[in-house]
């Protein structure tokens, strides 16, 4: 079964084509890595799948259901059940670590309210952030912030997780450590992963399959 399918998707900004007739399939549980130079449309592709951008043409399907087609979002982002780690992490500055996870869990319909605290503890343990549950983002180190962003993306049982160069701002040692953490999380939770990076090393380490994108 296909987790994500792009059918001849094109996208332009201010008349400049970023993605041109891209077709792509990602199977369930797969770890797909998109590699390519800046401006080749990697981030745009993730944002199209997430529903944060609309395709100019073509269609996008998630789990066999068309979610966007020809400038129309048929399923809004919040109903696509995706997790996403943004390049600049975008942790909400007014929330603690646990409030980040609570916010994501509040809208998880698979989970009863009484089950939320246990799920939160489980994920915090998984990303080794249980000790920092009440900390705000500004007080955390870069690696800790990265793990909070990961935890937020996976806490609500998403079937698909999108990661947009999540480790680009970290030093090589921390990057290698977090790559292993991502692999461990994916193995434990079983989500489909679409991962964007500049680094061939990261691509080789993370991906079952890599796609090299070129500017349109």
């Amino acid at each position, binding site marked *: 079964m296909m987790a994500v399918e792009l059918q001849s998707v094109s996208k332009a900004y201010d008349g400049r084509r970023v993605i041109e007739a891209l077709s792509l399939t990602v199977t369930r549980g797969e770890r797909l890595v998109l590699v390519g130079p800046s401006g080749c449309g990697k981030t745009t592709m993730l944002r199209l799948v997430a529903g*944060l951008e609309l395709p100019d043409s073509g269609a996008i399907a998630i789990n066999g259901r068309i979610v966007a087609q020809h400038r129309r979002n048929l399923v809004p982002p919040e109903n696509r059940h995706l997790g*996403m780690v943004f390049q600049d992490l*975008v942790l909400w500055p007014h929330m603690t670590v646990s409030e980040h996870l609570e916010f994501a869990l509040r809208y998880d319909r698979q989970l009863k309210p009484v089950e939320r605290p246990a799920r939160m503890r489980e994920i915090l343990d998984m990303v080794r952030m249980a000790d920092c549950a009440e900390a705000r983002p500004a007080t955390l180190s870069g690696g800790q912030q990265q793990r909070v962003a990961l935890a937020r993306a996976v806490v609500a049982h998403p079937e698909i997780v999108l990661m947009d160069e999540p480790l680009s701002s970290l030093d090589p040692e921390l990057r290698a450590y977090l790559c292993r953490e991502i692999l461990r999380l994916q193995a434990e939770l079983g989500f489909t992963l679409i991962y964007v990076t500049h680094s061939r090393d990261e691509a080789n380490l993370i991906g079952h399959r890599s796609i090299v994108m070129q500017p349109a």
Partner: protein
Amino acid sequence: MVVFALAVVGLLPLLAMLYKSVFADGRWTLSVYEHVFSNPAQYWPPVRNSLTLAALTAVCALLLGVPLGLLLAKTDVPLRRPLMVTLCAPLLLPPYILAICWFNLMSRSAWWGTDNLSQSGLAPSIWLFGLPGCLLVLAGALTPAVIILTVVYLHAVNPRHEEAGRLVTGWRGVLTKITLPIISRGILFAGLLVFLLALGEVGVPMFLRYPVFPVETLTQFSAFYDFGAAAAAATPLLGVTLLLLVGERLYLRDKTYELLATAPGRKILVIPLGRWRVPAALAAILFAVITVVLPLVSLVVSSLSPFAYAEALNKAAGSIGRSILFAGVGATVLTLLGFLSGYLIQYRALAVWRVVDTLTLLLFTLPGTVIGIALIALWNRPGIGWIYASTAMVIFAYVAQYTALASRITVASLGNVPRSLEEAAQMAGAPWHARVLHIIVPAALPGVIAAWMVGFIFCMRDLGASMVVYPAGQETLPVRIFTLMANGAPSLVSALCVVLVVVTVIALGAFRMLLQSAGHRR
């Protein structure tokens, strides 16, 4: 230079005022305070009225301004720009002109005729005089400040924060749990600003005969010529302002989350209203018509008598010319000082940047009458009396009161100029003044022009401070209108108000042209 200027027109006058209130004949005494505050029955009602009016105005301005700011900044409601311009128009006018507008609209002789209502005992002008009228006018005058600040803060929110929320929930959840909490401290600041501006307002409560504390201060000064009592009466206003600003500083320190300046290239996320677009636009238009357009139209209509404008020019031509001249000079000085203090604050160029920032904000939020009295306390003394008797006092008052505006605009403008531009010039060997003149100013030119224009507008509309410090025979147009309100014909007063509005609008047009030409050059 900035520190010296702010000390001369702001800090030292305040200290001189405090000194004069506690020293008489060379010895320490609290007699003037005892005299002023010895009669609680006389002292407390104006204090209570001031606090009630300021608090209600802040609440109303927030309840109206935040939703309108959200509507105009975050949604795809049609006619956003004209609505924004219309809703913010009252900010260009002295609040007491809005009081005149509402009076014209609601008086028995109003052009739409309230005689029938008067005969049935429902005359709207009855409740206009007092707290409801003051609240109506001040909420109308200050809600634009909340709208503008809400829009500015919304533009400074990182859209990625909202997108991260959109993956989990719809726009309602994102707004209530992410966007509004992130800008909540900015909204709190807007509320505080409105509270302080309403607390210091003199013109509206005087016109609508609602006894508030700043009027009491002014009365002590102008009616009884009792300077010590005026200074003593002004001190609580200084205390309240200082207390609230210190509280705000302590509470907001390190909590302003990326909201100090907008990042270049950031695009605000727009909420599609769908089928609510047209109803939302109609509601906003209706609100703008009732609160802005109708009062202004009533002003114009009531000025349309055969000789009103001829008489206005006859009686106030000098004041019109002086207002334009003083506002032009004041705006130029404000732009220079505002730029330097903004540079100081943005780049933390000197250790005293926080003091400068706080002092300018304190002076901005202080009642104009207090600033006027403080300036007189410092400058009315032997040897420098020629300064006290000159129009420099009016410029000093403008600089003291409005430097915060120019410096805040500069800070926002410099936030969009990469520091590396100046660093590159520094590495090329350019001295500081050359870097500022040839690199920073051109890069921040729209902000500099905006600072001049905003300074001009606020100097043009100033009443509180200029009413206290203007030299004999040198009154400005707002002061002239205010004095004519007591015994001038309503059509004459309305005509002068229209003249003030027209001059301000012409200045705005010039601002727009300058901005456009600056944009073309860039």
